[in-house]
């Protein structure tokens, strides 16, 4: 078979090569096994020392619908999504034209030679691959053939771009956990495909990779795994959960690591339990029960589940039970787009449940931070005796990110003000016997608590969501109600002392400040560089928690124009900042956008530029 070649583009290829700076999209159907192929390429590039990020855009079903996987290769370490593709591997005829459109001029198109499509663009480099033939030659068992097809493009791409086959081998070795058979059958096909490409394709495009030193000190991981591991290091003891995309993999990866990390070395028994509940009302109820019982307790969910937790969270808020809730956000309202990313639960999470409530929110902005907040959330929840909601999102939680290595917790566990038998005895001595569950002994709004199993005859108290006084007794007294609720609100002030501080990225002569949080970080950093090049330096504050700490106050004070960048419709962070800083309300400009896809640096650039012009 004579391979179909792309038209000769010598004019283009006279341009200098584009090295380690492009974006590849793989278009496949889900359930076809392309994930292995895609992450193999991602990992091989990472092992070559080249900064990479991978994003999966997948449908809310199991098999047979279009799926895209995008790898950004960036020598400068930019990890954000870009809207256009440099290289497309098109395995799915139904979306072919859409992909064709997304290619930059001079871009590369790779597709199986039997794909019933027509290439209608002249300004790109198109290569076909004899996928069927190569798979056939590999002599694979029929039921594996579809899956193996994907290895063909791995090999062809490796050859075209110059990806190190050794690194590909490493990636497969990792993926198949050293299982020789699996590794070899995949690798052989990749190698065959690479060989075929070497012999049959004339490279006319400019893209290629070269080993570099850009990934030292980094690992590849997704935020959900990181959060799970962080929680395990944080000593989580009880998890109540209910499956929901994109949060499921958080607890699922926890399950995977329990036996390694949380079995008692002596007895081989577990120091924690994960219970799959019948729904989210029950999941959070279990976690609250456990938190009340003195366990480090958590649940993880996404939007619809968070909505179902509203009543119970109000109970935990008012009865002052520490509990950690991970909300891995997806696009809402309602079921919305379950497999797309957003930051749309911020306002709801802040005020969740009827009556006056106010929650401590943690806002991880990287996978490494998911790990950190995985453990730190417990310290904060137990210290403050209040629910802590951690807002991650699908992009952060489910995609593979190049991220700084996880660091062992740099602080000892803070179990907060818990009194065991002897502590209580001492406390009673100190206070002449006047200990009460809700007494503000230290003036910081945080009372002392005893927990289930404490055998001291004075330890027990009655916990109730109805009005209660400092001793936990039922009360309908108006003054008592006000006093207790005001003290609880005071904890939100005290909280500031324990909050992770924002990360501030200043630039010289910056007039505009950007405030943002979470997974939009890479897009904003990249936009910052672009803007600086164009003479618009901006300072950037990445929030890591709410309540806001003094640094935020300060940052806003120092900038006449603040652009609040976020991934939702209403500008929810902008709302919360407006509420916290009404005096600066007019400085705060909202740049909010949500269509289910991660923000691009370009979009951020445009927002800030237009603000600058205002």
């Amino acid at each position: 078979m004579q391979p179909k070649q792309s038209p000769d583009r010598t004019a283009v290829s006279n341009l200098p090569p584009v090295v380690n700076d492009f974006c590849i999209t793989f278009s496949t159907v889900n359930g076809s096994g392309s994930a292995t192929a895609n992450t193999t390429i991602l990992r091989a590039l990472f092992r070559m020392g080249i900064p990479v990020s991978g994003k999966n855009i997948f449908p809310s079903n199991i098999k047979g619908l279009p799926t895209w996987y995008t790898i950004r290769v960036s020598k400068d370490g930019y990890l954000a999504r870009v809207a256009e593709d440099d290289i497309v591997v098109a395995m799915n005829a139904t979306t072919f034209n859409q992909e064709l459109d997304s290619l930059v001029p001079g871009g590369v198109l790779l597709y199986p030679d039997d794909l019933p499509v027509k290439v209608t663009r002249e300004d790109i480099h198109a290569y076909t691959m004899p996928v069927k033939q190569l798979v056939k030659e590999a002599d694979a068992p029929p039921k594996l053939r579809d899956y193996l097809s994907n290895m063909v493009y791995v090999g062809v791409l490796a050859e075209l771009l110059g990806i190190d086959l050794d690194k590909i081998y490493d990636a497969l070795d990792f993926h198949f956990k050293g299982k020789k058979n699996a590794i070899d059958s995949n690798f052989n096909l990749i190698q065959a495909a690479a060989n075929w490409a070497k012999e049959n394709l004339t490279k006319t495009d400019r893209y290629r990779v070269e080993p570099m030193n850009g990934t030292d000190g980094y690992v590849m991981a997704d935020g959900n795994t990181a959060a799970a591991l962080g929680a395990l290091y944080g000593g989580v003891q009880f998890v109540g959960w209910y499956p929901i995309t994109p949060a499921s993999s958080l607890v699922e990866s926890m399950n995977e690591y329990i036996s390694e990390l949380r079995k008692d070395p002596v007895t081989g028994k577990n120091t924690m339990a994960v219970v799959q509940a019948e729904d989210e009302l029950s999941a959070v109820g279990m976690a609250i029960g456990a938190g009340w019982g003195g366990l480090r307790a958590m649940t993880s969910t996404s939007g619809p589940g968070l909505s179902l937790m509203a009543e119970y969270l109000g109970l935990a808020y008012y009865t002052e039970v520490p509990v950690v809730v991970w909300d891995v956000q997806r696009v809402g309202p309602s079921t919305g787009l379950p497999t797309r990313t957003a930051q749309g639960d911020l306002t709801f999470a802040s005020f969740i449940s009827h009556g006056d409530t106010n929650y401590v929110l943690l806002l991880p902005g990287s996978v490494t931070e998911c790990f950190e907040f995985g453990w730190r959330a417990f310290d904060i929840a137990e210290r403050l005796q209040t629910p802590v909601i951690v807002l991650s999102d699908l992009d952060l939680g489910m995609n593979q990110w190049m991220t700084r290595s996880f660091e062992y917790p740099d602080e000892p566990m803070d179990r907060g003000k818990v009194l065991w038998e002897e502590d209580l005895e001492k406390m009673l001595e100190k206070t002449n016997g006047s200990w009460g569950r809700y007494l503000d002994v230290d003036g910081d709004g945080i009372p002392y608590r005893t927990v289930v199993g404490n055998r001291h005859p004075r330890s027990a108290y009655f916990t109730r969501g109805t009005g209660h006084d400092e001793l936990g007794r039922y009360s309908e007294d108006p003054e008592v109600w006000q006093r207790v609720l005001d003290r609880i609100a005071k904890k939100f002030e005290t909280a500031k002392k324990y909050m992770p501080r924002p990360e501030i990225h200043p630039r010289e002569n910056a007039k505009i400040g950007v405030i943002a949080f979470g997974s939009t970080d890479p897009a904003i950093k990249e936009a910052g560089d672009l803007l600086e090049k164009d003479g618009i330096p901006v300072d950037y504050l990445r929030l890591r928690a709410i309540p806001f700490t003094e640094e935020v106050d300060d940052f806003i004070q120092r900038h006449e124009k603040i652009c609040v960048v976020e991934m939702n419709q209403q500008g929810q962070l902008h709302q919360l900042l407006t509420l916290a800083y009404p005096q600066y309300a007019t400085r705060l400009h909202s740049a909010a956008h949500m269509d289910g896809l991660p923000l691009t640096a370009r979009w951020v650039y445009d927002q800030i530029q237009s603000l600058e012009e205002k």
Partner: protein
Amino acid sequence: MTSQPTVRQQADTNEAGLTRNDYKGAPSTLCQGCGHNSISAQIVSALYELNVVPEEVVKFSGIGCSSKSPTYFLNRSFAFNGVHGRMPSLALGALFADTSVKGIGVSGDGDTASIGMGQFKHVMRRNLPLVYIVENNGVYGLTKGQFSATAEQGLTLKKQGTSRYLPVDICMEALIANATFVARSFAGDPKQVKELIKAAFSHRGIAVIDIISPCVTFHNVETSIHSYAWGKENEMPLHEISYIPARDEITVEDFEEGSVRTVELHDGSVVMLKKLESDYDPTNIYEALRRLEEAERNRWLLTGLLYVNPDTTTIFDRYNLVDEPLNRLSPERLRPPRESMAKLNALMF
């Protein structure tokens, strides 16, 4: 054959060295005559007689008049009065904290069979060791007498009109959901209530006691199955039940051949069931269902231990947990060692 104290004690203290007062709670704010108050009294008696240490009991409830009851017994025990209909999840989480303490949950028919149906069913199948008492009056007492899901179809109450739907039978629901201890009783039969509570406390796993507990204020209609009058007239005990602590010897010889059945519970205590009209085998789910259905058809108040399976594993057994209470583990035992970090990072790829 009665319980013979092996340790000498003062007349008014039990073997735990405590007086009855140590088991009491705050004065009740429920209506005078409310069935729930008599049940609280029997809980106090049962636990006093069981020599349980109050600190080793945790109380749970949802929302309702019934769910207020935990305030009125066991002042010295921890308690969590949660949200309406969702007590089981709260109890489950809390009991994981220290599996050596015993949980007792009090709920109402609204709290359990209306809003709480889902959690009720699911805590059954998890076999959480919890004494789950339903104070069943067919109405929502605290919100002033609307029909609950256990109200009989056709029941007419002055302010509420007529109930349109077939009632939920809490015992049937528990049985089908694989509960391992299922009983029904009547607040007007305090002795049975007490013995059942004692047995439930010794049961390893979920123990449901559905107690008809009349709401004297909103639903004490004499013709209603949830009233005192009706219960007194129509109670039909399956057996006469007595609880015998593990330490006591049973001399079955004292009884006529075949007149008594015994069930040994996990802790060695024994439930003795004295035959009444006919012999009843409390280990047969379908017999239990049949008797319940028959009783429902005839509007008898069938009481007693409907079903017990003393030998299954609890939810805790299925989690392979360390022996000491989870909530007493030190940070060192909870945080993986520093060395593990590098190994883990190497896996992140």
